[in-house]
């Protein structure tokens, strides 16, 4: 496979991680990550642990302010000003990058991890052709000659399903539609053969028909190149469509994680159950739309105990005192709920 020829780093020669127990198959591993915002005044990510296996597609889902975007920013070494990692670790293929320098990140970006975001137009230079911007990456990071870079750029544009690569190469961002721009961004993100692509709300701004095409493209890249994808979205339906496993975020914590099947059809956490009920996907009948009463806590104003307790109709005394620990309820299924093993909760049926 052409893309794999460009793989610069062999994970087996990576330096062993200091913290955590990295497995060779994990391309990304986050352990007990804490991220503070507003110059350390509030903690927005509170002990998130997750892993992305090689060639695996993993979804991060949650409402705005749940910490999913900060988690993925931390994993990219791109935390906004005023935010910093207060604890925990991030490692790529066994290599701890939590305290990596800017220079070290430069070596990681592109060759180990690529990223696409919600608004592709704002990440591209509006006055340079899309082709020149991709070729630049290939020349600087991939160390290709001008001619090789051009040839490779055309190949990559073809790989991401742009119909006339030769034409797109010479167009500036304003001449391309949103879907084409997002494809071009994917081409740039995968140009140096990363093993992981992080997509933060990458399809949110697109039309449904185009969104479906981009999802198909990501699935296709995984099949052809073994690319692992970490897909961040507020839309459970999109995540369910694309991913193998899902992490559900609430108030800066992962409240439930499991396979798509488990999260969508056998959710155990009351918040996940509520999220599945309010998700819009796939039902075209007239119906009363369910809502989750109350609103999520503001960053930094978390209660003792479970953060969802004030919105949860199953909350009991123990939910409101002391830290609620994650409970393993299945092979890959974990729930952070004090009543995770109560019969009353696990037997509540979902009207899906």
């Amino acid at each position: 496979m052409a893309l794999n020829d460009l793989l610069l780093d062999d994970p087996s020669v990576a330096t062993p991680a200091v913290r955590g127990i990295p497995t060779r198959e994990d391309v990304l591993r986050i352990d007990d990550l804490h991220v503070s915002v507003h110059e350390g005044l509030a903690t927005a990510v509170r002990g998130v642990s997750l892993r992305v296996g090689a060639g695996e597609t993993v979804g991060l889902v949650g409402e705005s302010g749940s910490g999913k975007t900060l988690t993925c920013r931390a994993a990219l070494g791109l935390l906004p000003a005023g935010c910093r990692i207060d604890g925990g670790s991030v490692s790529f293929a066994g290599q701890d990058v939590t305290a990596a320098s800017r220079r070290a990140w430069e070596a990681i970006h592109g060759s180990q991890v690529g990223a696409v975001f919600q608004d592709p137009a704002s990440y591209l230079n509006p006055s340079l052709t899309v082709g020149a911007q991709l070729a630049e990456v290939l020349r600087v990071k991939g160390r290709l000659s001008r001619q090789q870079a051009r040839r490779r750029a055309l190949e990559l544009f073809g790989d991401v399903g742009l119909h006339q690569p030769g034409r797109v190469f010479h167009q500036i961002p304003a001449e391309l539609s949103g879907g084409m721009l997002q494809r071009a961004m994917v081409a740039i993100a995968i140009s140096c053969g990363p093993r992981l692509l992080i997509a933060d709300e990458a399809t949110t701004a697109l039309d449904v028909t185009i969104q479906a095409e981009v999802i198909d493209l990501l699935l296709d890249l995984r099949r052809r190149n073994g690319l692992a994808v970490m897909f961040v979205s507020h839309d459970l339906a999109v995540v369910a469509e694309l991913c193998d496993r899902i992490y559900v975020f609430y108030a800066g914590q992962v409240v439930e994680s499991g396979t798509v099947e488990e999260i969508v059809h056998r959710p155990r956490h009351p918040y996940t159950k509520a999220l599945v009920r309010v998700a819009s996907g796939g039902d075209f009948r007239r119906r009363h739309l369910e809502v989750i009463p109350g609103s999520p806590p503001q960053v930094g104003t978390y209660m003792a105990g479970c953060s969802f307790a004030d919105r949860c109709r199953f909350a009991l005394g123990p939910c409101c005192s002391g830290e609620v620990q994650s409970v393993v309820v299945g092979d890959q299924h974990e729930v952070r709920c004090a009543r995770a093993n109560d019969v009353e909760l696990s037997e509540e049926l979902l009207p899906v």
Partner: protein
Amino acid sequence: MTATAPAELRLDGGGAPPPLLEVESLEVVLGRGWRANKVLSGVNLKVNPGEIVGLVGETGSGKTTLARAVVGLVKPRRGRVLFDGAPISGLRRRALRAHRRQGGVQYVFQDPLRSLDPDLTVERIVGEGLAIRGDPPEEIRLRVVDALAQVGLDASLMSRDPGQISGGQRQRVSIARALATGPRLLICDEPVSALDASNRNHVLNLLSELRGSLNLPIIIISHDLGSLAAIADRVVVLYRGKIVEDGPIDKVFAAPRHPYTALLLASTPSVTESRSLRAHQLRLQEGEPVPLLGPGACVFAPRCPFALAETCSAQPPLTGVEPGWSNACSRHRDWPNLARGRS
């Protein structure tokens, strides 16, 4: 291009009341000279009292332009817009302003954070239309409290500004602002696309309740077909400035007659696997032959895997298939079977 006769086959059930809003062969061109772009052409639309109409289509299909033409923010080149039997598309400055001040048609914008003045309090925002209309201040205050109550917001929010309330509350404030003047038609342009799932459902339920309690007709522009199906009565599908399908939402979504409607439905992400057709069965695959069609051909033909040179070289008029349901596909009988046969 000559305007084709509207081939409407809508049986309104004899003595039904006349539609509140009627759009007739509307054509809108934006830009001039070589930039001129025909955004809408030959659009016919009726909205009856108490009806929720969903307007769907992709970016650039003309949904927002149609909505803006209805409120008089865009001047049509051809055709008319009738509100309660009176043409409003031809109104000029003073008359148009008088029409707007009555507040009979209200518009709710997509992004409440950007459409609400950040320097005004909720009370001023909701009461602004009434103040412009010249209502006395004490009456305005009562109406504002009333409008906020209608959207389920507490009067204690009145002194806050838009930056101090949550996204869901903000969109409810925009709806309260629209309701304050006692509109007879509400147009919501992507009212929920900036909201989380729970808030989205809350706002949509609210719109559905308002239709019930006030018999208020609502046009909702949305790209979220699943949520629309929950509350709308009728769906109008736009593609490149033309209506390609218009009918009762439950019937249309159960068995769409236009391949574009089917593509939209199949592309909608789903938490359950319950689609009859998958998106790739309705998409033109790379390298698949496309018939060579000249200008004036069916607007969807360049993206349609079922287009034929013989049948699709002219834009089919919107034709009734059964009362209240029309579509603009000349192959509407053939394509569903062809689609099922595609891998």
